[in-house]
C-alpha cells in the first residue's frame, strides 16, 4: 500500500433503470476497490452479482438502460467519470483494455484476424496499415499462435476456441494498456487450454507490467492467479483483501460458504456443498443484508438494516454485522470455530 493505486474506485453505484423508470436494479451498489500497478485483483461472485457490470462500468461501456449513479473512479490520478465520451474512447483499448467472456462471439465474423488485431493500433496510434499489421503478427506470435503470417489473413471461424481467446488476448494487449480486465476469460475453454491461457496471461502481465482484474467464479483460479480478492454478492463487495488472508480466515459468511463449496480431494461426503437458497432479485432487495435470507448465522439485526462496509483488519474490508465493531467480540469467536 506504499504506492498510489492505479485504479481507485470509491462508492461506485450503477443501476439499471427500466423504460418507465419504475424498476431499478442495483447492478453495482456502493462498491469501493483499489488496484495497484502490476497487481492482480480477483473478483468472484455468483452469476448476476454485478461482476461484469462493474467491469463495464470501469470502461463506461454500459447498455443503454444502465446509469452510473454515484461514485468516483480515479485512474492514474484522473476521474474516469468526469471524462467526456471522446476522452473515454482514447482510454479504452489503449490504457484500459478488456477481454470478454465468450471467445467464439467476441470476434467479428466478417473481418480477418489481422484486421481486427491491427484495428486498435491504427485507431489509437494512427499507425499505417502495414505497420499495424506487422505489429498484429508480432502480437499473435506473443500469444503463441502458430504461423501468424498466414493466420492474420484468416477469419475467426477458421480458428479453434482456444486460439480465438488468445487472439482476443492479443487485441487486449495490443496498445500496451496499464490495466487489463479479463471477464471470465477461461469459462468456455476446456481445462488444459484454460491452464495454458492462464499461464499466458501471467506471462503477459509480467512482460508488460500490467495490472489485471480477473473476474471469475472459480476460486481455484483466484488462488493461483490473484494477489487481492473482492467477493461480490447482490451488487456489493461483501469482502475484500489479500487472497491468502481471505482464504485462511474469511470474515463474511458468504465467502466462507463459497470456500466450503469447493470440492476437496479425499472428501468422503457424497454430495457437493451448496449454498441454500437463491441469489436475491436485485430490484427487490430486502431492507437488511442481502445475504441474510441464506445466511446460517443471520440474526435480527441482519434482517433489519444492511451492514456498512467496515475494515476490521488493515487492508481488509467486509460488510457483515458479525464483524462490525459493536458486536466485534462475538464475531472472531464464531470465525475461529468455523475454520
Amino acid at each position, binding site marked *: 500500500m506504499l504506492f498510489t493505486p492505479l485504479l481507485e474506485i470509491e462508492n461506485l453505484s450503477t443501476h439499471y433503470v427500466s423504460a418507465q423508470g419504475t424498476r431499478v436494479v442495483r447492478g453495482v451498489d456502493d462498491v469501493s476497490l483499489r488496484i495497484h500497478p502490476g497487481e492482480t485483483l480477483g473478483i468472484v461472485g455468483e452469476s448476476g452479482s454485478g461482476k461484469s457490470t462493474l467491469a463495464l462500468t470501469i470502461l463506461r461501456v454500459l447498455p443503454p438502460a444502465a446509469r452510473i449513479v454515484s461514485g468516483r473512479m480515479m485512474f492514474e490520478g484522473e476521474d474516469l467519470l468526469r471524462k467526456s465520451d471522446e476522452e473515454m474512447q482514447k482510454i479504452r483499448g489503449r490504457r484500459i483494455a478488456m477481454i*470478454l467472456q465468450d471467445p467464439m462471439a467476441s*470476434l467479428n465474423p*466478417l473481418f480477418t484476424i489481422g484486421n481486427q488485431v491491427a484495428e486498435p493500433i491504427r485507431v489509437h496510434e494512427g499507425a499505417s496499415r502495414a505497420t499495424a499489421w506487422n505489429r498484429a503478427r508480432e502480437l499473435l506470435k506473443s500469444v503463441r499462435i502458430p504461423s501468424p503470417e498466414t493466420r492474420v489473413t484468416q477469419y475467426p471461424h477458421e480458428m479453434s476456441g482456444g486460439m480465438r481467446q488468445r487472439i482476443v488476448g492479443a487485441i487486449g494487449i495490443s496498445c500496451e494498456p496499464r490495466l487489463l480486465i479479463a471477464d471470465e476469460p477461461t469459462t468456455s475453454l476446456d481445462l488444459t487450454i484454460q491452464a495454458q491461457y492462464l499461464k499466458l496471461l501471467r506471462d503477459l502481465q509480467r512482460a508488460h507490467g500490467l495490472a489485471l482484474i480477473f473476474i471469475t467464479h472459480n476460486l481455484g483460479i483466484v488462488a493461483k492467479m490473484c494477489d487481492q480478492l473482492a467477493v461480490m454478492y447482490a451488487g456489493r463487495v461483501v469482502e475484500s483483501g489479500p487472497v491468502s488472508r481471505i482464504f485462511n480466515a474469511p470474515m463474511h459468511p458468504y465467502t466462507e460458504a463459497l470456500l466450503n463449496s469447493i470440492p476437496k480431494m479425499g472428501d468422503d461426503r457424497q454430495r457437493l456443498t451448496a449454498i441454500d437458497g437463491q441469489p436475491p432479485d436485485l430490484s427487490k432487495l430486502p431492507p437488511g443484508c442481502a445475504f441474510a435470507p441464506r445466511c446460517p448465522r443471520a440474526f435480527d439485526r441482519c434482517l433489519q438494516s444492511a451492514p456498512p462496509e467496515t475494515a476490521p483488519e488493515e487492508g481488509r474490508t467486509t460488510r457483515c454485522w458479525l464483524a462490525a465493531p459493536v458486536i466485534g467480540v462475538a464475531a472472531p469467536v464464531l470465525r475461529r470455530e468455523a475454520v
Partner: protein
Amino acid sequence: MKQFVIRRIGYCVLSLFLLSLTIFFFVRVTGDPATLLVEPGASPADIAAIHHQFGLDRPLIVQYALFMASVLTGDLGQSFYYRTPVLELYWSRLPNSVMLATAAMAFSLLIGIPSGILASVRVGRFWDNAGKVFALLGLSLPSFWVGLVMILVFSVYLGWLPSSGSGTPLHLIMPAFALGWYFAASHMRLTRSSMLEVLGSEYVKLARLKGLPQSLVIAKHAFKNALIPVLTLAGINFVIMISVAVVVETVFAWPGVGRLLYEGIAFRDFPVVQGTVLMLGAMTVIVNLVVDVLYAVIDPRIRLAS
C-alpha cells in the same frame, strides 16, 4: 463454391417445375376463355371451334405436356387475345416493370436503411418512435390506396404530376413511391431489428472496448453484419415488387408486366397468365440464387461451409 452453385440451380429447376404445374391447372379453374372471345349468343359449334383452335379440347395431361414441350424450346405459346407470342408481349412490357421496380427499390432502400440505422442507434427515443409510426403506416396502408391518394393530391389538386401513363421521369415518381412505400417500411424494420441484434453482440461490445469511435463501430462492425439479411430481403423484394406491381400498374396505367398479367387474368388469356407467372417465377428463383451467391461472397463462413 462450384458445388454450392450447382446444388442451388437444381433447386431452382425443381421449384419452376412445380410452379408450372400449379399455374397450368389453377388458371384452368377460372373459367372458359372461349366465352369471352366469342360474341354473345354464339352457337356451341362456334365455341367448340375455338376450343379446337386453342387445343383446349384435348385431355389436360396432353395440354400440359405440349405446353411444357414448347416451354422447353423457349416458346411460351400465343396469346388468345393479342394473337402474338406471349414472350414477345412479356419482353415488350418488362423494361417498364424493371424501371418501376428499380426506382421503387432505390427509394425504399434510400429511406429504409438509413432510417432503420437511425432507429436502432437511437432506440426508444424520438427517431425510433418516428420510425415505428412510419413502419406501421407503410405496412398497413395498401399501395393502391396510397396511389389513389397521391393521384388525388398531386395530379388533381396540385396538378404537379401526370396521373397515369408512362414516357417521362415525371410519370415514374408516383408509381415508384406508391410501390416502394411498403418496401421502405419493411426494409426499415428489418434494418432496425438486424442492427439491434448486431449492436448487442459481443463483437460490437469488443469493438467499443477497443476504443473505436462510435461511427466506426456502427459503420464497420455493426452495419456490415446487419446488412446481410437486409440484402437478402431486398433481392427477394425486388422480384416481389415486379409481381405485386400488378395493382400499382393498374392504378397508374403503367404498361408493365403486372398490367399484362392483370389483363391476362381478366380475359382468361391462359398462355399470357401461364407465361407471365412462369417468367416471374423464373426471375424469383434466379434473384434468390444471385442473392445466395452474393451472401457467400460477403460472408466467409458460407463460402467455406459450402
